[in-house]
């Protein structure tokens, strides 16, 4: 078994908000028809969740499901369980036009924590962060690369990006969160 490492191995930065690469995170992409009975049953089986409403997240004891598009969900689970869980879903999907892929090693996860967390995002994405609700997920861009993020706690935002741009995104977030760069407009 190879020694799995995340893109930036937990790198962190303390500015007016804290930026942290979150290490290994299990992530499974599901695609299919949300109204399909087997799709819904499989989602429940692997995550304990129902299909989330448009641009929302659902949580259960065993996992979190993120709405990505009208036919795509992202299931979050423990890294070391992701492969087994994916295989379980693939088996369930055998006779439906649905798909499950373990994308844990193809993504990187960051958090921004602190009072200015929304402000850090507001500098980089064309999103009204003052109106951004808790439990809302947004797929957009951070400067020049695609990203998805949601408010994971009162003062914390979780960001998912492609692993190949992890360093670029970390550098962006560091610059946007640098001390002295507070705008003080969004709280």
């Amino acid at each position, binding site marked *: 078994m190879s020694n799995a490492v995340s893109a930036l191995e937990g790198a962190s930065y303390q500015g007016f908000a804290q930026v942290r690469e979150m290490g290994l995170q299990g992530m499974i992409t599901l695609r299919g028809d949300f109204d399909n009975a087997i799709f819904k049953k499989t989602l429940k089986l692997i995550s304990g969740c129902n299909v989330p409403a448009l641009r929302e997240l659902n949580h259960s004891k065993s996992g979190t499901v993120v709405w990505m598009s009208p036919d795509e969900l992202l299931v979050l689970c423990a890294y070391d369980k992701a492969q087994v869980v994916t295989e379980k879903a693939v088996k369930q999907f055998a006779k439906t036009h649905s798909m499950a892929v373990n994308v844990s090693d193809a993504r990187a996860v960051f958090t921004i924590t602190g009072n200015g967390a929304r402000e850090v995002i507001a500098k980089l994405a*064309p999103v009204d962060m003052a109106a951004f609700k808790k439990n809302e997920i947004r*797929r957009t*861009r951070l400067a020049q690369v695609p990203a998805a993020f949601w408010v994971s706690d009162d003062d914390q935002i979780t960001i998912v990006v492609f692993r190949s741009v992890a360093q670029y995104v970390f550098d962006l977030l560091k610059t946007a969160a640098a001390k002295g760069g507070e705008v003080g407009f969004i709280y």
Partner: protein
Amino acid sequence: MLIFECPYCGVKAEETELHAGGEAHLTRHGAGASDDDLKSYLFMRKNPKGVHFERWQHANGCGKWFHAARCTMTLEVFGTYSAQTFEPPAELVKKIKKKRPDWEGWT
């Protein structure tokens, strides 16, 4: 700055989240088509000064393609609608006609 509401994820996306896909509702003439049909499919576009129907992709977003109607001169957006259609919704056409009585129609 153009702002389109994506009909698939409901986001009011500004231009930098989107990818332009050119004129909408073209007939795709392929293998076996006449030279004239193929030429018109490949090269001939309306390019109007005014009401235009277009394809756009929510590239930095949900990834879906959708349709949009806008004015190429004023950038006024009349509406967006699903990609799973061969023609603009009648309601939208009616709305545009009301706003632009001189408009010759979408076909």
